[in-house]
């Protein structure tokens, strides 16, 4: 009896030890030539570029991909002990939140100088790497370009009733509303949102769903980011019944951007990565492969994109898009979210 019991216990003990060791063994070590990147930017839009970086510098990048907001919340939760060296965000709001929490370090002036002022932090805590314009995407079978309004205000017209789609849950839509609040003030934004809501737009959880709905003719016009159309057409190898329209009176250009964590022990390597993301090679990748606007001024945007300087409002300083709670309460108060 006893022997059987001891044998059982020994068996279980060895088994558990092996499992524990293998579980712990999976953890990556931290070497001089490795940095850890938390990326809210999608893997398909970043991984090929990081490989090029490793080839050039010999620095390996361990990347944790996830939603921008989730990763920002993770870094806030990790606080001083974050294993991350660099954070790559899909929108300026999350970068602003981490700057505010004092989690980023100041970047060297020569790096910041590469990017025009609106697209970087005023305190020099983060820098934009590529630009993403807010556009109206419309169904080419159901709407003529000439019918579209000159700015977003035109969408509150009664003729757009039940024909518009938006994504109030999406960070880029919320950034757009925050921009409106900064530019026009609280009351005007509230008026615009109320008038829009009265037109009963359909809500989608994200921009890609809007684009699909527009292409399928479920709605006629959607508020979206510009690049989804191009990437989707590239993937499906077809031309969708949808086109981007940039309101001539102006629109918001948000950024994807990066910051270096204050707690990193690898500032030098992290800065090399940032330098690389602002290099001609990376900027070309962002515009040629992912259809975004390069932010380093010497690089020409992809010819399929409408020129960026045709957008008067694009000069809005993105560091100002910090008050996200205000936007959320406004959207919730109006019952939009």
């Amino acid at each position, binding site marked *: 009896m006893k022997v059987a019991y001891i044998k059982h216990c020994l068996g279980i003990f060895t088994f558990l030890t092996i499992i524990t060791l*293998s579980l712990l063994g999976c*953890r990556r070590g931290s070497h001089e030539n490795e940095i850890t990147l938390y990326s809210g930017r999608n893997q398909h839009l970043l991984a090929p570029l990081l490989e090029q970086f490793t080839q050039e510098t010999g620095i390996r990048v361990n990347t944790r991909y*996830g939603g921008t907001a989730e990763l920002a*919340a993770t870094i806030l939760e990790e606080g001083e*002990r974050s294993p991350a060296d660099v954070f790559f965000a899909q929108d300026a709001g999350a970068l602003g939140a981490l700057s505010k929490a004092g989690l980023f370090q100041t970047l060297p002036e020569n790096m910041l100088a590469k990017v025009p002022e609106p697209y970087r932090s005023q305190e020099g805590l983060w820098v934009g790497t590529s630009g993403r314009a807010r556009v109206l995407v419309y169904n080419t079978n159901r709407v003529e370009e000439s019918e579209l309004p000159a700015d977003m205000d035109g969408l509150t017209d009664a003729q757009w009733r039940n024909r518009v789609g938006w994504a109030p849950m999406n960070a880029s839509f919320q950034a757009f509303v925050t921009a409106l609040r900064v530019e026009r003030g609280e009351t005007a934004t509230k008026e615009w949102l109320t008038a829009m809501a009265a037109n009963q737009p359909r809500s989608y959880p994200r921009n890609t*769903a809007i684009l699909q709905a527009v292409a399928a003719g479920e709605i006629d016009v959607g508020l979206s980011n510009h690049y989804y159309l191009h990437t989707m057409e590239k993937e499906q190898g077809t031309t969708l019944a949808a086109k981007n329209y940039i309101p001539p009176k102006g629109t918001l250009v948000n950024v994807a951007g990066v910051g270096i964590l204050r707690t990193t022990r690898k500032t030098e390597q992290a800065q090399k990565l940032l330098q690389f993301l602002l290099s001609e090679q990376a900027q070309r990748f962002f515009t040629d492969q992912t259809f975004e606007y390069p932010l380093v001024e010497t690089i020409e945007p992809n010819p399929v994109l409408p020129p960026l300087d045709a957008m008067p409002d694009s000069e809005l300083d993105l560091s100002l898009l910090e008050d996200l709670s205000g936007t959320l309460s406004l959207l919730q108060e109006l019952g939009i979210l």
Partner: protein
Amino acid sequence: MTPKARRKKHLYQRIFSGRRLLRIAVILVAALSLTPVLYLIVRASESAPQIITLLTRPRTLQVLANSVLLTVLVTASATIVGCALAWLTMRTDLPGRRYWSAITCLPLVLPSYVGAFALLAALGPNGMLQGMLAPLGVTRLPSIYGLPGAWLALTLFTYPYVQLSVRAGLRGLDPALEDAARCLGLTRLQVFRQIVLPHLRPAIGAGALLVALYTLSDFGAVSLLQYNVFTREIYVQYSATLDRSAAAILALKLVALTGMIILIENWTRSHRPQYRAGTGTARAQTRIRLGNWHVPALVLCTMVTLLGLGIPVLVTMFWWVRGLHADSVIGAQTRILLHSMSASALAALSCVLAALPVVIQSVRYPGKLSRLAEKAAYAGHALPGIVVALALVFLGARYLPFLYQSLFMLVAAYTILFLPLALGALRTVMLKLNPRTEEAARMLGHTPANVFFHVTLPQLRPGMLTGMALVFLTCMKELPATLLLGPTGFETLATRIWSATEEAFFAMAAAPALILMLAAAISLWILLHHEQDQLPT
């Protein structure tokens, strides 16, 4: 032996006595399960003044009403479908019942965001169905958005919980009981109502509870189908403002709602003994001949399979074929598949190991501790994955840096999230074990440990297998915890699917999604096959 050595031995025996070890294990499991709730309390208390405003605004009541309505509807319909399918495949001569029992469980493995996407593509406005009906003059389908769509999607992806649980319950039923009741003059209907149903009640209750909690914690389906419930509200709070305190307050409300649901489930638990007390072994169950009823039965199976499995598979295949020209479709998926399988298998093992002490304690030595441990376990299951993940980020980064972002942490998160799946399956079987067998073994001079390993554990095997299968299949599709807690660079099929759909690369999502379904189908097939060999059916 010196007195000192004797004292030492005595102490050793006291500490390592079976009952004490069991208690310690139960306490540890309860502590693990309560981690997210403790974290939420810490975060919520940071902004006490906000609590009142967040709790009393009219919007909160609306969201509460929506959540309750959806949960009630989904639980009811999933219970009906799950029970019907379990009964048909276990107790009747339904043609091809072995295949049906495996196929009808498969919707369980679909990540709800993929399933909902597929349903939208097929049944949504201008979707495939409308395209097919267009020649017949149908130009508008009833809208799938809102409650109807969320209800349909969640019912289709959760009924297998009830089905698997009821299967286990039906298998343990001794036909002699029904025979005796029939001999005493009860009609078939009376036998069903007075004998079968009371015996199945815990199994149905356990399955329905899992459905209810899944519905409460699901984010993918409700966000795509545009129905505003708590998880969506919590997610918006995180993503829009990164305000963790406000999100924590909302999540605590979800915990409170879970508490209420658990109380209801408690009421379905029968206090009568569930085990056989007769001598000899139970004889094989007889199957009911369906006769002409096999037609509607087959129609039901086909309909459910078509909606829950057929549509998602077809839509995914369609994406895959459409993207074939875009070269970047099937890369090396083996490594990712291995990641998915190993993390899920470890989690299945860990959940069953954690569930064992809790179930034994609660069935054999019920008391305050066992009740607490069981209820704590359910709290984790009702919370959205992001909340549990952030709780472990908080705990890991601050207090366990040597474990943080190791596979260990990920398996711990899976265990918190999915422990109830194993608990329910094990409990259903444990209730059917007659304690007299264990007592007899003790009388014959076996140590408690020996009895446990040679009498109790072997009999629990079907429950352990079902529990492991449920956890395994659910972990394969888990997303938020995998993204935040896995080792950096640890990709799984679910994260692959997510990163592709996130940017609308549907073709790239198709290959991993198909592999996920295939891997799950194979594991499920092995399990059910194994189960059939084990026991007479």
